[in-house]
């Protein structure tokens, strides 16, 4: 589905990012994988290149670090590495009610979830402008679309991604670059496994399909948005939540 394409995935060592790497590789896309842990990235590269006929470039990159982001994308450009698709996946979740949220926590959440996504899109879109073609997939959340108690900072960071997606899609549409976002519900990742039992049960009980989502459920929709199957789809926020109600 993505033969000959090149996809850049942030936060690629775990959860949804890692599953996107696997699924996109299976579908023929070359990969540029970014994450903080270079050791894990190298293991993933080795695994994917042994299984599929693709090339995988890995770079350590904390999306909170603007200098590093610019450096990585400059190097990719210098090496004439194309980017057809960006999966803006890197994100963190820190839960607390507003009155119990310290400044450092909202700096960390916003720097990672919002600034990181914006900066990566700013850099990657230049590659797409050159080709007058591309797809950017941002990771929002059902908490961004609906809000949730105890998640004001996380929820607002993911709501910012929705506004960013809709505006950027209008900015880049004339250049044939599509920008969409996914709004996953309750997905079985390290992030959700860290929740306390009561909070977990409350969320689980609100899922219409009565099962947790998997990273694969999300990666499949990311694949659709990255591929030509969605060539007339832009500016959309697609829920992947099994009918979850918040």
């Amino acid at each position, binding site marked *: 589905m993505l033969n000959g394409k090149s996809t850049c995935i942030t936060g690629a060592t775990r959860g949804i990012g890692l599953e996107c790497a696997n699924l996109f590789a299976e579908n023929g896309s070359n990969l540029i994988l970014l994450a903080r842990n270079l050791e894990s990235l190298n293991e993933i590269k080795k695994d994917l290149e042994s299984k599929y006929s693709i090339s995988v470039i890995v770079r350590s990159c904390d999306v909170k670090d603007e200098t590093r982001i610019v450096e990585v994308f400059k190097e990719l450009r210098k090496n004439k590495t194309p980017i057809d698709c960006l999966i803006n996946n890197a994100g963190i979740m820190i839960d607390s009610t507003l009155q119990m949220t310290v400044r450092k926590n909202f700096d960390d959440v916003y720097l990672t979830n919002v600034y990181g996504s914006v900066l990566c899109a700013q850099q990657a879109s230049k590659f797409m402008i050159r080709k007058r073609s591309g797809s950017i997939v941002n990771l929002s959340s059902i908490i961004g679309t609906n809000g949730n108690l105890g998640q004001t900072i996380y929820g607002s960071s993911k709501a910012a991604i929705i506004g960013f997606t809709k505006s950027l899609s209008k900015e880049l549409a004339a*250049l044939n670059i599509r920008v969409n976002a996914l709004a996953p519900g309750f997905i079985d990742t390290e992030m959700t496994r860290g929740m306390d039992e009561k909070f977990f049960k409350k969320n689980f009980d609100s899922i219409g399909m009565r099962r947790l989502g998997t990273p694969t459920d999300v990666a499949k929709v990311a694949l659709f948005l990255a591929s030509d199957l969605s060539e007339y789809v832009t500016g959309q926020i697609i829920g992947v939540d099994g009918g979850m109600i918040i």
Partner: protein
Amino acid sequence: MSNNKKILEAFSEALQVEADIIHDALMYQSIPEWDSISHMVLITELEDVFDISIDIDDVIDMSSFAKAKEIISKHKITFD
């Protein structure tokens, strides 16, 4: 090809205008063809033609054809 000719061609290609309307005083948004969208295309075109990376501050500062030459000159590229 001279750098003068290269930058003229880059502008012409990015803005989709004839080269003879491009001169030092040509300003960003002074013609319909040089809008915020084509400005993005122009930046990538200039980066490719001169094999440079243009920083965000310079993307914002590039307010005219003359200013574009000044910005590109910072990358040790000379114009007659």
